[in-house]
């Protein structure tokens, strides 16, 4: 992996809040809270964490199923979605500040100067908000067809009233392909790639087994020849014996087509096997991000350690000795010393405050 190369996807300060209720019952759920990462061409980047930590939301926001609350998402160098919360807050802050300043000053000419300055700044921010809104709303099919998603549940994600050919061709049709001969050829090609037969094209999803259905899902994602695939727990709904088929298939896609994959999962042994870099999420934040071997050998954040210690392995002897490390979020004292996401070693990031950062550094040296 070449770090100097431009990332295929970069996420900057992404926030995704969900609001519910009104007035007193108003509740804001911070599903994703200020995360940033880059994904480089040809790599498999994994998001792991417990359910409800926001990993699926991250994937869905990237593919524009949600509009981000704040932060920016760049895909192939273009901004595809951006939120406006921080800009709006900035405007509010500037307005309040100028009010404060104006009250203190009596000189008329100076007052006019300050007013003009703040108005200029606000106008700039407003223009940026408009631009971001346009970027988010724009439907750039040429660009977006390079990004596809594989869903968790192979039963629920395939339309039961469409035959396999229609399912796979849907993306192509939306991307503007009208020639039926081309579509049929492409569908057969895709079925072939995922290890199904051309005669399967006229069947309905219910006629397939779980593993085959998930392969149809993969074929649908591949039809528009994407460069980037978001795989949202693609195997967790499958049986053990079938799981290996789908993982091998995804592995082949990466090796043969050079597809970049964002892999969302909670099964750590699978993540270790399949991915290059791993980010661990906890309650909407990425707490640690590193190369897979680095993360498994030198976990720093207590949550990562707890997560790694909880993985059961098919080895009875190891299991008898395994000690689970419980994680208690109250070990962090973030009242004064505010935490941030920082690089502790080339390629190894951790969410910590100054004091913890120093401690982790020392641990890393030992």
């Amino acid at each position, binding site marked *: 992996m070449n770090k100097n190369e431009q990332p295929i996807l970069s996420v900057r300060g992404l926030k995704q809040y969900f609001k519910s209720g009104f007035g007193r019952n108003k509740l804001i759920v911070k599903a994703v809270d200020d995360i940033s990462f880059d994904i480089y061409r040809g790599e*498999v980047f994994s998001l792991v964490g*417990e*359910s409800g930590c926001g990993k699926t939301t991250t994937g869905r926001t990237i593919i524009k199923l949600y509009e981000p609350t704040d932060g920016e998402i760049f895909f192939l160098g273009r901004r595809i979605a951006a939120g406006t919360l921080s800009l709006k807050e900035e405007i509010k802050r500037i307005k309040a500040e100028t009010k404060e300043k104006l009250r203190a000053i009596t000189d008329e000419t100076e007052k006019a100067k300050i007013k003009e300055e703040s108005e200029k700044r606000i106008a700039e921010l407003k223009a940026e908000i408009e631009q971001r809104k346009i970027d988010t709303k724009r439907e750039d099919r040429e660009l977006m067809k390079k990004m596809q998603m594989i869903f968790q549940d192979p039963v629920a994600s395939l339309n039961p009233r469409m035959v396999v050919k229609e399912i796979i061709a849907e993306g192509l049709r939306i991307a503007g392909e009208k020639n039926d001969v081309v579509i049929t050829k492409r569908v057969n090609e895709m079925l072939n790639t995922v290890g199904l037969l051309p005669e399967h094209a006229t069947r309905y999803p219910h006629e397939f*087994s779980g*593993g085959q259905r998930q392969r149809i899902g993969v074929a649908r994602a591949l039809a528009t020849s994407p460069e980037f695939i978001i795989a949202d727990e693609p195997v967790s709904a499958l*049986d*053990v*014996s*079938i*799981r*290996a*088929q789908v*993982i*091998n298939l995804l*592995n082949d896609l990466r090796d043969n087509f050079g597809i970049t994959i964002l892999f969302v999962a*909670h*099964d*750590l*042994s*699978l993540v*270790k*096997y*399949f*991915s290059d870099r791993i980010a661990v999420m906890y309650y909407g934040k990425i707490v640690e991000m590193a190369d897979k071997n680095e993360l*498994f050998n030198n976990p720093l954040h207590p949550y990562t350690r*707890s*997560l790694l*210690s*909880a*993985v*059961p*392995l*098919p*080895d*009875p*002897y*190891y*299991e008898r*000795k*395994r000690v*689970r490390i419980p*994680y208690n979020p109250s070990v962090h004292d973030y009242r004064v010393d505010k935490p941030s996401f920082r690089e502790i070693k080339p390629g190894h990031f951790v969410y910590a405050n100054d004091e913890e950062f120093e401690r982790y550094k020392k641990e890393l040296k030992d």
Partner: protein
Amino acid sequence: MNTTNRRVKLSVRDLTVSFRTIQGYVRAVRGVSFDLYEGETLAIVGESGSGKSVSSKAIMGILEGNAIIEKGKIIYENQDLTKISEENFHLIRGKKIGMIFQDPLSSLNPIMRIGKQITEAMLINGKHLKNRLKELVHEPRMKYVNTIQEKKDLINRYKIKIADLKKEGKKEEIAELKAQVKTQLIDINQRIKEAKAELKKQIPMAKKKIKDDWKNEKLKAKEDIKALKEQGAPRQAIRDRKEQLRRYKCVTKKEAKERALKVMREVGIPDPEKRFRQYPFQFSGGMRQRIVIAIALTLDPDILICDEPTTALDVTIQAQILELINRIKAERNLSVIFITHDLGVVANMADRVAVMYAGKIVEIGTVEEIFYDPRHPYTWALLSSMPDLDADSKERLLYIPGTPPNMLFPPKGDAFAERNKYAMRIDFELEPPFFKVTDTHYAATWLLHPDAPKTEMPEILKKRIANMRNKHVLEEVKDNE
């Protein structure tokens, strides 16, 4: 671990369960036999549709209406659970054999407070006077109910046989069978009549006895209270005496709550007094599973069946729940049947492992034997299809081609032969019997037959097991130092 001289708690022999459907009979379980020893955990592993849940449901007696136990025995405390009546099963289900289900959300009632759900069973089962009546007339009643059950079983078995014979088109045999069943039915009907008459005679006598006892108890309580009042005892003492009288009659709400809070503390629910009044949606997934475990534990069973209790949970929560089950098992000396498809969990929990495929146990042995010395090709495939933490993505995972067989038409011979690259010609024709590897380790595969060609397990698995062994040796050396 020496399991041979421990007491057998539950013994399943040649259990066969089928489901009646429009398409025909689905043979879900085809002759499963195993023993559950006291204080051990037996893990049953297999993919979905292998019959692991069905066999556990058969043990609990909660099979769906269209299920038929064709043959086989489930022996618990010298009783055959497949033969005893629903009435009799009430004494066992929950009280002796408890069960934890997969999805903790759907096994709790969303509009009922947690406390009520935990105490519900205690209150319903706690009508002491009614229970006493049942006890007193137990024998004639059981005779009556059992004969009715016998009749039902006879008819069910008869239906299956007829269906089989019709398929083969043997008309004479059908007629013969019909006549045979007719005479049997006449006999059974006669016996039912007799049992009913006997029961009717006994009930009034028992009722009278209970009434007298209750009157005596009331009188005693009255006298006690009188004495207490004369002594000038505190009010609390009088209240307690009244409560005691009530408790003679039934499990009071107060008593049930005390017991529920105790169990809730035992399963690690913080602040149980507050939690007692909350609804399921106010609990997280792990906490909900703890509640389900608490409900199973209130009646103090000695066998606990866990049907994929952690599949719906996260790794960290899963680890907590597994620890909890292990702790409770040790504290209460429970025997646990643990059903799962996660081999990591099996390695953690089990003392012995049974691997199921297409309604049959294909390999059974202690956990070390299954993980370090597997013999059946299906076990090989299962173990090697999992990535382990040392594996590299350059190394392809072995996978099992094809799909499990359709159990409407169970295959001839070895059910796994279709997907097995080691399959021999005999696998497609004859079902393999169990071959003994050690006293505790059996596998049903023709590869173990003395005449079979020498076959080695897949290279990837061999390497992995060698790796695990090496690690242990290294660690042991370190420990000794």
